[in-house]
């Protein structure tokens, strides 16, 4: 449980961080450290250089310009969960943040770290997928904006290049005709989600759902959008039976994870259950 030797540099600005990161093929970024440090101690990862971005307080913010919610990459889960602006204007992200790990993890962990790490069971990627968020990354080569869809490519792998630092997450502003909810079943010992479901449902006038975005984490190799569920929800009035029928498609086309805490058969069943609950809760918010 002692990490292999590594060099350590503290970044004093974003420019400094990307310069350090780009100077070494084998560098890793350190933000909250709650995912990286255990991997270092187990020697699963052995970077030659750690670039500590944990003091870049200029990357800790939650702003709303009316059209877009922008969140700095160093914003901690605790802030997402408790910040008044986040709770009002990014309720889905805020609700999911309350369910991450435990209070210690939420006070250390950052949204940028979670997104970059790409743990297939982390909660926030499902929310970013359901909200069609944008992920802003910087490198020595400049700025690149990724769509959440396609960003999470596999277990612990993302579309990020090795020399890129996530600086900001952008969410579309809230709309009155949308309801959202996050429902998750966690593995109690670790706090990781066995199944996590982010649901957004939109009714553009009338009683039927006109748009839906459903994303799951913990279930597949990477967080994913459940397109078959979304298709089944459009035109749906939201009766209990029709929600359950749509939710039954939660794992269509997905190779479902199995481990000692939930084999793939059980996880498949729970994916449908929690998808149903997330959709019903999202519709409930819309009605209220």
């Amino acid at each position, binding site marked *: 449980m002692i990490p292999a030797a590594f060099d350590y540099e503290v970044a004093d600005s974003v420019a400094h961080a990307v310069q350090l990161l780009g100077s070494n093929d084998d560098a890793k970024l350190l933000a909250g450290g709650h995912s990286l440090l255990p991997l270092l101690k187990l020697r699963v990862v052995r970077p030659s250089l750690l670039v500590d971005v944990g003091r870049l307080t200029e990357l800790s913010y939650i702003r709303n310009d009316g059209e877009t919610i922008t969140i700095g990459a160093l914003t901690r889960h605790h802030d997402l969960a408790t910040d008044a602006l986040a709770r009002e204007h990014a309720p889905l992200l805020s609700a999911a943040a309350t369910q991450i790990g435990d209070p210690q993890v939420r006070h250390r962990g950052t949204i940028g770290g979670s997104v970059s790490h790409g743990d297939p069971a982390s909660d926030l990627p499902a929310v970013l997928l359901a909200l069609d968020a944008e992920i802003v990354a910087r490198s020595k080569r400049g700025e690149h904006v990724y769509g959440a869809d396609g960003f999470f490519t596999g277990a612990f792998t993302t579309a990020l290049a090795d020399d890129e630092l996530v600086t900001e997450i952008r969410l579309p502003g809230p709309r009155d005709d949308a309801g959202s909810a996050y429902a998750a079943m966690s593995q*109690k*010992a670790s706090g990781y989600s066995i199944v996590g479901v982010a649901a957004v449902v939109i009714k553009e006038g009338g009683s039927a759902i006109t748009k839906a975005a459903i994303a799951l984490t913990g279930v597949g190799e990477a967080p994913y959008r459940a397109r078959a569920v979304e298709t089944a929800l459009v035109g749906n009035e939201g009766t209990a039976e029709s929600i359950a029928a749509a939710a039954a498609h939660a794992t269509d086309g997905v190779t479902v994870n199995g481990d000692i805490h939930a*084999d793939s058969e059980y996880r498949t069943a729970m994916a449908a259950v929690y998808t149903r609950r997330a959709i019903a809760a999202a519709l409930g918010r819309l009605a209220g």
Partner: protein
Amino acid sequence: VHGGIAQGVAQALYEEAVYDDDGTLLTGNLTTYLVPTAAELPSYELDREVSASPTNPMGVKGVGETGTIASVAATMNAVIDGLSHYGITDLDMPATPERVWRAIEEAR
């Protein structure tokens, strides 16, 4: 006494040593082996029956873990009682959500 009851409830519902086919322990740390916290446990109401021990001059008895033996059986009996309408009469410990779900699926 609380700790003893907690230990029994944990054996019935949470704690499990899982090995793979090669005999490697898969639950070797606290992120995989669930030791319950207060959040996983009920509140307790305690009562006591006083009877002095005849085997020593002070009449004292050890009471550590007195709750452990009975709380395992009490918890498992409660789980089985809750599943009795499915005709379920037995379940291996710990009665995890997955085991309970599987027992219900098989009974249907």
